[in-house]
């Protein structure tokens, strides 16, 4: 779509009168905001400061078109943009000042690149003539973010802005999505453009050409392997959700009758009820999925990247199987696991092309093998977790009760640690696009800001975040953002007074030397109340049901703290460097 000056003027708030002869010349800041509007952006997560003040001045005029959400720390802006992007499929936008504003974004940018989350970060910079002089709040943010952005660029002239912003959104949102950072010097924000503003969306770039449709011969080779397989096994990942390929994935597994397992970020793409769904892969994944990884004859990996948390020791990983790898990023092919049949392209297109080529099949006996392991896992782990005989509440029962109450249909976030793994294990995902967590970077402090970002992206869905007591204190200040916007996110702190996951490792691998993992926690409810957010603590199993009802009944943001067992461990577990088939049950 092309926007000429008249169209954008109609979208934008009235500006100084346009004379007939002379085109209206706007400054770089207005050009930036109009570019964002032309791009369809409705929400920005940001934090102002000296080097971005001209843009903030401009935003003031466009509040009916663009909602700006003032976070409490720039890391919060980044994670909120991620949460927004993950749930809506749109690109998240952050706006921050130079120097410390930009460096505070760094963790969020690193998080977004490894989890392929589309995000555009707009950062103020000192004026061009000050660049390289160690001016006040000058930081080489371009240099800092080279390894963690999909693309970055420094704008020094107002005239560049529309084209660069168009490029930024195209790069961030296409192919394998990722974060893009645009650094804009203050003079570029202030100066007038030399010509009338116009905006043209970017649809192609000469040097960047993601392959959407895979090559036919690659798809045919994959289909042949699938049709000949006796014990085929689908591994699906985040790429399925990014491509919006959930429907095609279902059609594929139903037609071929292949068992399918999920990576951490693939969770919710297939409903846990589906007869072909066999569970979760990797370090804290399910027993059967891990063991049978080493017994299948063909792996059909779709939109996943064989992360080390999935594979364990690669030299003992699925060695017996032929590997089909469907992946949009060619650099992922053979990176960790050599593919016998690589299919480079978008998961949706690949599955669409594959579907007519694969035969209808029946793998009932093979699928039944997973059941045997499920029975063992259920007896040894799941039942004791869900129906404990111990006095203290267990994380699993909280999560499962919430799952039941929300019918498995909420947007669920998890921060990082034991509670994250428990959420992945015990929430019964029924609806695609329902699980948001920091997978690749494992960023503590992710969930609270990502949760309100997700609520903005999916206002009609129930949004619930499970957060550890350690994680919560990393971005606790975002309660302020939630309160100010009145965003009805539901927060559940699973408080074990420990950095639980680290404590688990210390228990298992460091002879129980609990080195600096015990927390003296504040009164979370008082803190929430101080921010104007209601909440209460649940300390006994008898109150859990009622506590969760109260949380869900609220039409405002609500914080529920649940005091859980202090020294609980997440099992099953594939210890680092172990083989997936040697997964431990205790």
């Amino acid at each position, binding site marked *: 779509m092309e926007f000429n000056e008249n169209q954008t003027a109609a979208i934008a708030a009235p500006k100084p009168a346009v004379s007939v002869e002379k085109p209206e010349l706007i400054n770089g800041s207005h050009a930036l905001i109009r570019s964002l509007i032309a791009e369809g952006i409705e929400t920005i997560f940001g934090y102002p400061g000296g080097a971005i003040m001209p843009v903030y001045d401009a935003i003031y005029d466009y509040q009916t078109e663009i909602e700006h959400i003032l976070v409490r720390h720039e890391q919060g802006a980044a994670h909120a943009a991620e949460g927004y992007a993950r749930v809506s499929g749109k690109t998240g936008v952050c706006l921050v000042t130079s120097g410390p504003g930009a460096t505070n974004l760094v963790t969020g940018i690193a998080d977004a690149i490894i989890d392929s989350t589309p995000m555009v970060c707009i950062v103020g910079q000192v004026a061009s003539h000050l660049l390289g002089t160690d001016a006040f709040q000058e930081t080489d943010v*371009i*240099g800092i973010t*080279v*390894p963690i952005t*999909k*693309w*970055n660029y*420094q704008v020094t002239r107002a005239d560049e802005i529309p084209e660069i912003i168009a490029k930024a959104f195209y*790069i961030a949102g296409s192919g394998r999505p990722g974060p893009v950072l645009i650094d804009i010097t203050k003079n570029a924000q202030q100066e007038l453009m030399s010509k009338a503003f116009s905006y043209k969306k970017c649809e192609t*770039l*000469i*040097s*960047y*050409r993601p392959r959407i449709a895979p090559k036919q011969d690659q798809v045919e080779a994959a289909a042949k392997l699938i049709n000949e397989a006796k014990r085929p096994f689908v591994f699906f990942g985040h790429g399925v959700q990014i491509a919006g390929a959930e429907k095609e994935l279902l059609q594929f597994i139903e037609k071929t009758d292949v068992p399918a397992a999920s990576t951490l970020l693939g969770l919710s793409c297939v409903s846990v009820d589906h007869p072909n769904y066999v569970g979760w892969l990797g370090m804290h994944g399910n027993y059967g999925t891990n063991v049978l990884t080493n017994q299948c004859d063909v792996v059909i990996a779709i939109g996943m990247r064989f992360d080390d948390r999935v594979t364990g020791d690669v030299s003992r990983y699925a060695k017996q199987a032929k590997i089909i790898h469907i992946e949009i*990023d*060619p*650099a992922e*092919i*053979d*990176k960790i696991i050599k593919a016998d049949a690589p299919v480079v392209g978008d998961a949706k297109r690949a599955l669409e092309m594959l579907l007519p080529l694969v035969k209808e099949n029946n793998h009932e006996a093979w699928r039944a093998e997973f059941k045997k392991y499920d029975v063992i896992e259920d007896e040894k782990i799941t039942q004791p977790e869900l129906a404990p005989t111990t006095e203290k509440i267990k994380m699993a029962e909280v999560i499962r009760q919430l799952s039941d109450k929300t019918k498995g249909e909420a947007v669920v976030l998890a921060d990082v640690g034991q509670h994250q793994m428990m959420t992945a294990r015990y929430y019964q995902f029924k609806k695609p696009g329902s699980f948001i967590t920091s997978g690749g970077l494992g960023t503590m402090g992710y969930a609270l800001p990502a949760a309100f970002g997700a609520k903005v992206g999916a206002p009609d869905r129930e949004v619930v975040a499970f957060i550890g007591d350690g994680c919560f204190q990393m971005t606790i200040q975002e309660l302020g953002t939630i309160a100010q916007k009145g965003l009805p996110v539901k927060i559940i702190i699973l408080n074990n007074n420990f950095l639980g996951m680290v404590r688990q490792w210390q228990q298992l691998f460091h002879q129980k030397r609990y080195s600096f993992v015990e927390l003296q926690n504040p009164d979370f409810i008082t803190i929430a109340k101080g921010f104007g957010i209601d909440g209460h603590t649940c300390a006994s199993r008898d109150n859990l049901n009622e506590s969760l009802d109260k949380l869900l009944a609220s039409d405002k943001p609500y914080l529920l703290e649940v005091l859980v067992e202090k020294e609980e461990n997440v099992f099953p577990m594939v210890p680092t460097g172990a083989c997936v088939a040697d997964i431990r049950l205790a």
Partner: protein
Amino acid sequence: MTTYTICVFTENTIGILNKITTVLTRRRINIESLTVSETERKGISRFTIVIHHESREAVEKLVRQIRKVVEVLAVFGYLNDDIAYNEIALFKISTPIGAKPIDIETINKVYKAWVVYWHLTYVIIQKTGTEEEIFEFFDYIKPHEILEFVRSGRVAVSKSPQTLVDYLPEAEWEYYQ
């Protein structure tokens, strides 16, 4: 260890060097030499990067990772046999009065090297060739005092008859006249 020459074609933009070298340094791959200049097409730079590596597979992965950089148009990894390549070296040799005279004829005819600057007490000799040829000459000239020695990075073109245009995305390339 095998020597690989990696040719990277990029848009000629600020910061691209950093974007490319980051891909290597992150993977702890040392750059033996690096040469960059604009190609015959305006706005397109060519990087010639020489690395040593044990694993061809790792180099192939590296090539794919470099290709991911948005400004990169094409990347090729070559073995020495696949390319015509050269370096240029300058030697500043001490020639004070009374020193052993330098043998210009051998320098020219045997080593295909040229004196490019004469001074009263030293000369500057230019030698182009492969790394081996340059070091052969280095050994020859060493008995004369070497005041300074500098070697450029490698430049290389593939021996294949295909030209760059065959690989680059279609575009209206603007050429230098």
